[in-house]
């Protein structure tokens, strides 16, 4: 384990120091592991990153400075998937079809304004790695509710006096329903979880067609927790099963990380100010929704995975 970690620390980083992310930015950790993982899995191929309007139009740097070690194509909010398809088409025509074209898009872009584009690119089975950088609200504009905001969460447009009604959109299952070759959820809350994360990135690099990675990106200003707690909050999201780590590989679902002793969801919620106004009844309702979704995932795994051999690369 220590040796593996040393390798990870030593590798060349494709997100350079000096970027403009906030202190404690979860997605800044995540994008580096996505890019470095894809590069390590296919060292012979280049990467083009497609980024719609988001925090990352700023984090990338003020022109002409650039924090990324790969080409970055910036797009309007709703068209990242279509533009990634255009880049892939053109690279094929120019004999550079081996390039890994990667979308790095937020939850507003993916679950709301750009969903038709993500769905269409998936349905066309475009040869792309689409990464949903899910920080569960419109963070770049100052924390507004998106389709990926969890129930009850405070945002500036769902204030504590009128909290978010309805459930977080289950985007991983929506994408899997397209019959695409690979869907996975990722969150690096511990070393074993990081291993799971990197194994899924490696698997995504290996598969061809539309691959969808749903990455949980903890956000200190948006979720209202101290900047040194990003990894811990991420860990609690997974250990409480609020954000289960799963993969759907060629139609076969698998829970790739099973918390040995699941922590109550209350602990995850209490670690963040955005849930501070929830009553014990609200927390109980949240817990029951988490439990129900876990039961559904266990059932999916039972239905689809028995006859399949799970790929060894994503074993934890």
């Amino acid at each position, binding site marked *: 384990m220590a040796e593996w970690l040393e390798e990870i620390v030593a590798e060349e980083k494709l997100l350079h120091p000096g970027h403009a992310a906030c202190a404690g930015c979860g997605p800044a950790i995540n994008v580096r592991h996505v890019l470095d993982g894809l590069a390590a899995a296919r060292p012979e191929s*280049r*990467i*083009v990153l*497609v980024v719609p309007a988001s925090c990352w*139009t*700023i984090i*990338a*740097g*003020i*022109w*002409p400075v*650039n924090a*990324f*070690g*790969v*080409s*970055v*194509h*910036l*797009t*309007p909010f*709703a*068209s990242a*998937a*279509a*533009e*990634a*398809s*255009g*880049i892939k*088409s*053109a*690279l*094929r*025509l*120019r004999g*550079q079809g081996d*390039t890994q074209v990667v979308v790095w898009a937020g939850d507003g872009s993916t679950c709301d304004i750009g969903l*038709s*584009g993500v*769905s*269409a690119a998936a349905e*066309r089975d475009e040869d792309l790695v689409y990464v949903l950088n899910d920080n569960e609200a419109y963070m770049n504009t100052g924390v507004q509710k998106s389709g990926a905001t969890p129930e009850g969460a405070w945002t500036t447009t769902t204030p504590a006096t009128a909290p978010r009604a309805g459930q977080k959109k289950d985007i991983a299952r929506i994408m899997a329903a397209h019959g695409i070759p690979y869907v996975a959820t990722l969150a690096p809350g511990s070393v074993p979880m990081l291993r799971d994360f990197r194994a899924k990135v490696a698997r995504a690099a290996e598969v061809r067609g539309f691959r969808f990675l749903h990455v949980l990106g903890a956000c200190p200003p948006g979720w209202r927790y101290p900047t040194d707690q990003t990894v811990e909050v991420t860990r609690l999201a997974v250990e409480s099963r609020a954000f289960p780590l799963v993969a759907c590989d060629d139609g076969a679902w698998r829970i790739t990380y099973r918390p040995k002793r699941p922590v109550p969801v209350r602990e995850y919620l209490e670690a963040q100010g955005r849930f501070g106004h929830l009553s014990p009844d609200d927390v109980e309702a949240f817990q029951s929704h988490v439990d129900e979704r876990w039961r559904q995932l266990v059932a999916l795994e039972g239905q689809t995975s028995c006859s399949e051999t799970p790929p060894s690369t994503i074993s934890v």
Partner: protein
Amino acid sequence: MSAVLAQGRTVLTANEAAAHAVMLARARAIGCYPITPQTIIVERLADLTAGRDDVEFTNLESEHAMFGYVIAAARVGVRTFTATSSQGLLYAHEQLQRASRERVPLVAVNVNRSIFAPWSIEPDLSDSMSQRDTGWIQLYCASAQEVLDSVLCAYRIAETVLLPVMVCAEGFLLSHTSELVDVPGQDMVDAFLPELRPPEEWVLDPERPRTFSALPEARDYDAFQRRVADAMDDAVSLIEDVASEFGSRFGRHKAGALAIAGNPDADTALVTIGTIGETALELLEEDDDLLLVRVHAYRPFPAAQLSAALARASHVAVVDRAPAFGAFGPLGSDVRSLGPAHIGAATNVVCGLGGTEVTPRTLRWVLETARSGGADGDVAPLYVPEGV
């Protein structure tokens, strides 16, 4: 197995002529989304490119996505094409603004159709006129031949100044009307239109990592916009040069910014755009005190050429096929912005909306109105009375 391109003199609709031009231009990434009356263009291109591995033909899920697709493909250095109409063009507005600011040499055909509400699929120019300030060069056509020729010229223009070009053709009047069209040979087109070679530093190349269109400081943002304006200025003379080169290579006249007919010393001038300019030609048979000016290149606006053409007329009438609510029609305001005073007082008439017929009789009414003092002092255009 792909369908075969017609050659030589043949009968085509403007939609088919556009598809032929795109194939002759060797566009390699084509984005498709249906909308009446444009759809036949992309249907023909689907047939003509079927089974070819040197063309990527992609069905997108919206016009916004479609323009995003071709913009991205062009950034990698590939010649692209797309086509739309009406609501589709409006839906893509965000991408239209961005394409010019990012200096993407796209060519798109807009088959002009009125816009909702209420619903209509009939022609007027409201769709593309509402996009006139997006930084696209706009060429308005009056025949299927002019559509074919303009698409070929559009690639030359776009790729020289690095700005997108929109070739506009009225729905049904052109898109679905069969005409005799001369389809040039591939060799001639290849000689006129070399392979796309954008500046290397502009191309998104995975081997040379860099970020495009990143957030700049305010003064740099300002400088980028000025370069777009400068490129538009450069396009004014380029459009004339490309048209004249086209004329000598292909052996037929190609309009530059303006198509001028009639008596250059006439007292009355009629300024039109699109197929109304073809209808106006009939008036010359009965009226020898008439100068006809059809605006082909509407953006960049050919101010100097128009001022020169209208210098000798004492009555100027401008016919718009699109409203600009609360102001003169788009072409009317632009013409009235020119000096001297007789042009500034031009009579502006808006007609032909939603496919309403514009006949020689309509245009006679326009001329009578202009000759009798017209709209001097008015702050809004005239609408043609019912029955005219």
